[in-house]
């Protein structure tokens, strides 16, 4: 068992644990904080996968901006806790059973039935990150220019949408 694999397993464990933490915390603030942790572990995975830019984006956008927004809203609404009553109790159990089955199924498919699809080698420490980043930028702004611009429009729409939704003045629907 190589060092990398050990590192991977530890990280994977951390990420699963934090994900469960998010799932199970009664307090929404804890959930959010667990999720931040989870995002950070995923970011480390990205680094291991040779995607430093995505890793940084993950941390700044997700762990940073988005989660802060979540925390802000949670506190704004004072919605940390909700009474734990279920309208449909069977649903909860059904969901858990199904989720379990799903995990077992995928595990079976990937580990038992599936053939290994290749190995992941972490990038060389000496790899030139700047060049790779530049190349990615080139790809993004050449090949994917249109989707990129469309995304910007999407963001604009979302922004306007959010403002319209929150606005007090309801004369204009």
């Amino acid at each position, binding site marked *: 068992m190589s060092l*990398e694999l050990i590192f991977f397993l530890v990280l994977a464990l951390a990420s699963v644990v934090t994900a469960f933490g*998010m799932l199970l915390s009664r307090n929404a603030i804890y959930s959010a904080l667990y999720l931040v942790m989870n995002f950070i572990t995923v970011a480390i995975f990205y680094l291991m996968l040779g995607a430093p830019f995505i890793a940084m984006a993950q941390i700044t956008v997700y762990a940073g901006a988005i989660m802060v927004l979540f925390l802000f809203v949670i506190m704004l609404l004072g919605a940390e806790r909700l009474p734990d009553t279920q309208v449909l109790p069977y649903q909860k159990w059904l969901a858990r059973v199904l989720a379990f089955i799903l*995990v077992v199924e995928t595990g079976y498919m990937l580990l038992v039935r599936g053939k290994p699809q290749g190995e*992941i080698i972490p990038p060389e420490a000496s790899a030139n990150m700047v060049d790779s980043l530049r190349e990615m930028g080139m790809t993004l702004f050449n090949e994917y220019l249109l989707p990129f611009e469309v995304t910007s429009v999407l963001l604009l729409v979302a922004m306007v949408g959010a403002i319209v939704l929150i606005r007090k003045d309801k004369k204009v629907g």
Partner: protein
Amino acid sequence: MIPINYYIILSAVLFTIGTLGVLTRRNALIIFMSVELMLNAANLAFVAFARAREIATGQPLFDGQIFVFFVIAVAAAEVAVGLALIVEIFKSKRSIDVDQMSSMKG
């Protein structure tokens, strides 16, 4: 030397946890966070596949990463609108319990 299958399994597990969150929690905010987790799981799979392919071909390949980049952008947009909706709903219902949001029940 980590088999790619491991990454995929991890992704699947995270995804399922996210699904469970959506299905079992009643706090709209946590449901929302779970959705984010699911997106992350998918992103992880994307990057992993991209890396695998990069290694297999020996060429630098950015399509997977760029896709993730877009997903993050979309997620940001989604969060903005989604949170606005939640705030709005909270204002009118004084609750963010999704099981109370059943005006559409037929």
